[in-house]
């Protein structure tokens, strides 16, 4: 998508702290109550190098256009609310700092912001998260254990705990799934995040549900749809080796062991 035909806005009400530079933020706006299709709007906003992109969105919402809608909560990369496309790449708006986006040699900086792809856009940067969570729920993302529970905790070695550490970090932000070209083309594919969360249990030594989960992922819309493009790994704000996790699940299916 190219940023064309955007409108300019009066941004003079936004407070400009000392040391700020003006940058242009182009946002793909869409309000189904008023618009027939998404369109770009452009805002010249003062920004400090230490500002997060989320701060820029706040300033636009607070001082220019209150109708701008986006999810946010913790603002430091833990809650997973604010995944969006920033300059075309899936990122959390609260984890991208302006200093890392500034144009070289003093040119005017432009930052584009658009909703993540592959999920229906509901308004501006709000997408419908239901299909995403539906895929997550489908892989039985909880510990399955049979037999009597021990009185105390289950014993797990440090090495066994380490085995699935990477995939416990997932915050379900959907940055990976919505960066996946297979998911864009076919929304019934489980997508990387669901597989990551299946991996988290398949490789947990305490879990006895691997077979059920592997059966689910062996489905036509399962793990074999992955084309190993590594978009998901690049997109993950938690640094999870998503593609590797998917490969490990594939290998578990091929060799029938975890």
């Amino acid at each position, binding site marked *: 998508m190219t940023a064309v035909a955007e409108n300019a806005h009066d941004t003079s009400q936004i407070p400009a702290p000392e040391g700020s530079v003006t940058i242009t933020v182009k946002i793909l706006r869409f*309000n*189904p*109550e*008023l618009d027939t299709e998404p369109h770009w709007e452009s805002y010249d906003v003062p920004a400090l190098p*230490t500002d997060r992109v989320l701060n820029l969105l706040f300033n636009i*919402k*607070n*001082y220019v*256009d*209150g*109708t701008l*809608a*986006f*999810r*946010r*909560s*913790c*603002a*430091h*990369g*833990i*809650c*997973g*609310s604010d995944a969006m496309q920033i300059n075309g790449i899936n990122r959390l708006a609260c*984890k991208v*700092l302006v200093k890392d986006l500034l144009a070289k040699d003093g040119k005017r900086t432009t930052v584009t912001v658009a909703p993540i792809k592959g999920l229906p856009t*509901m*308004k*501006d940067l*709000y997408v419908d*998260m239901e299909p995403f*969570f539906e895929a*997550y*729920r489908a892989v*039985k*993302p*909880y*510990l399955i*254990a049979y037999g009597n*529970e021990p009185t*105390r*905790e*289950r*014993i*797990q*070695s*440090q090495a*066994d*705990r380490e085995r*699935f*550490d990477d995939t*416990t*970090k*997932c*915050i*379900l932000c959907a940055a990976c799934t919505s960066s996946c070209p297979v998911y864009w083309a076919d929304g019934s594919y489980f997508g990387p995040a669901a597989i990551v969360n299946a991996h988290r*249990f398949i490789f*947990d030594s*305490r*879990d006895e549900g691997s077979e059920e989960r592997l059966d689910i992922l062996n489905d036509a819309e399962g793990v074999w749809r992955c084309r190993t493009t590594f978009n998901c790994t690049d997109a993950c704000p938690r640094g999870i080796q998503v593609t590797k996790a998917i490969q490990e699940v594939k290998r578990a299916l091929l060799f029938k062991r975890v």
Partner: protein
Amino acid sequence: MQFHKYDVVIVGAGGAGMRAAIEAGQRTRTAVLTKLYPTRSHTGAAQGGMCAALANVEEDNWEWHTFDTVKGGDYLTDQDAAEIMAKEAIDAVLDLEKMGLPFNRTPEGRIDQRRFGGHTRDHGKAAVRRSCYAADRTGHMILQTLYQNCVKHGIEFFNEFYVLDIALTDTPDGPVASGAIAYELATGEIHVFQAKSVVFATGGFGKVFKTTSNAHTLTGDGMGIYFRKGLPLEDMEFYQFHPTGLAGLGILLTEGARGEGAILRNESGERFMERYAPTIKDLAPRDIVARSMVLEVLEGRGAGPDKDYVYLDCTHLGAEVLETKLPDITEFARTYLGVDPVHEPVPVYPTAHYAMGGIPTNVHGEALRDNDTVIPGLYAAGEVACVSVHGANRLGTNSLLDINVFGRRAGIAAAEYAQGRNFVDLPENPAKLVEGMVNHLRTATGGERVADIRTALQQTMDANAAVYRTEDTLKQALTDVQALKERYGRIAVHDKGKRYNTDLLEAIELGFLLDLAEALVVTALARKESRGGHAREDYPNRDDTNFMRHSMAYKMLPEQEDPDAPLGLTGFTADIRLDYKPVVFTRYEPMERKY
């Protein structure tokens, strides 16, 4: 308007709400109404651990934990409640492990434990390893594990539903809970949920402050709803400042860092906590560490160009400990301050963190309408509630414990209450107040902007009602808050639409923040002593004779000249009435608090 009927309605899907839902949902028909997708809740930002006297790595027992909780709370803690929490802590941790929580492990494969502020061996002799943890992501793991188990049990969620009022039905014996009224973000529609019991688990209100570890969503909605019904809020003056927020930003760096051996230093590199807490030094409770840090800065020993912060020195811990046990905070320092904790000390300063006060409850999570009368069918758990297990200052890790122990208790109690009863009729026109608020905001044309009022509120609270307070600063804060409330009456929102109208909801949330800020300031003014999280420069000592008691703040409801006025928006000249409630003592006599 849509109408729903459930036995139990739980409001909020953080740790307390989901722990309650797992209990209630397996017993009776339950719905969880949450303004966020459950995994976005701020429980997920908790880092360091959850204390329980498992004694996996060294001798420990729940009685020591109880004592630490009582002493940590500067003796305002209700001792019966603290004892229940410390006893049930052990099962609470084991339950989470059985649900799948990936705790860090000892070499023997048991749940690993580490030191944490104020948690000691044998009544203060030395720091003890009591905190069960999963790296510095314990809250994240708890939130994920609880959500996973909600999925397992098929709990029904209404995501992005903002509860803006509760339904209370008057009976000859007083008010009884009968439901909750919610605004659906996606459509702007109002939903009435009739329920036999309602559990509030809506979290805190840290957004009254500018520098805070709290999420943007922590606007105290549950406490605000309760307060506006003329029901009391307990101990609102006790607000915790976490010592180690990233300087200028407020992002939390876990106390677990100090548990692993990190040291606070002033500009000259001095380990200043040795002067304030000679025995446990950097692992003193948060109120003491936060005050000490502020004193270092006020006395000119702060670091940085403006001498306005101190350092958290992790450099001697080594890259491996930082990368494996404290990976997230290491990344936060790198990302947001450009400081690498492996090589450099991290600039830190206290950040508004946790409300000790809230909706008064008994140990079953039942909400109280005065010092001891239960509102049948109404429950609260977690940060929104005041049991009071935290007294004047909560110990680190005891919040993750609180949500699990009292979330579970409230869930069970709410389900059992609902199982034996019929539905109570809703009051006439139950959605009236919410409709009034929403319609007013959609049509209001005043000149005031939400962001301006919110910024001014946060600035005055940071300047006048933070770690240290005086009569003068608190009076200034009160004047400012009341002026802002008056301006709030002339607010206008830009977005008049129905879909995803966060502009309108931010305006409503700001109203709650203003009410709660006023309650905080009024109770702080009245408490002429220093205790726990409430430090008065003009009254530096604890005064057990006059103030060994909980405060109970009631909003005086305006005489309703106009029965159709949108209450939430015009009832703003109301005064606050203060009452007091005795502290429950069992084993421990108040002593001077030294560490």
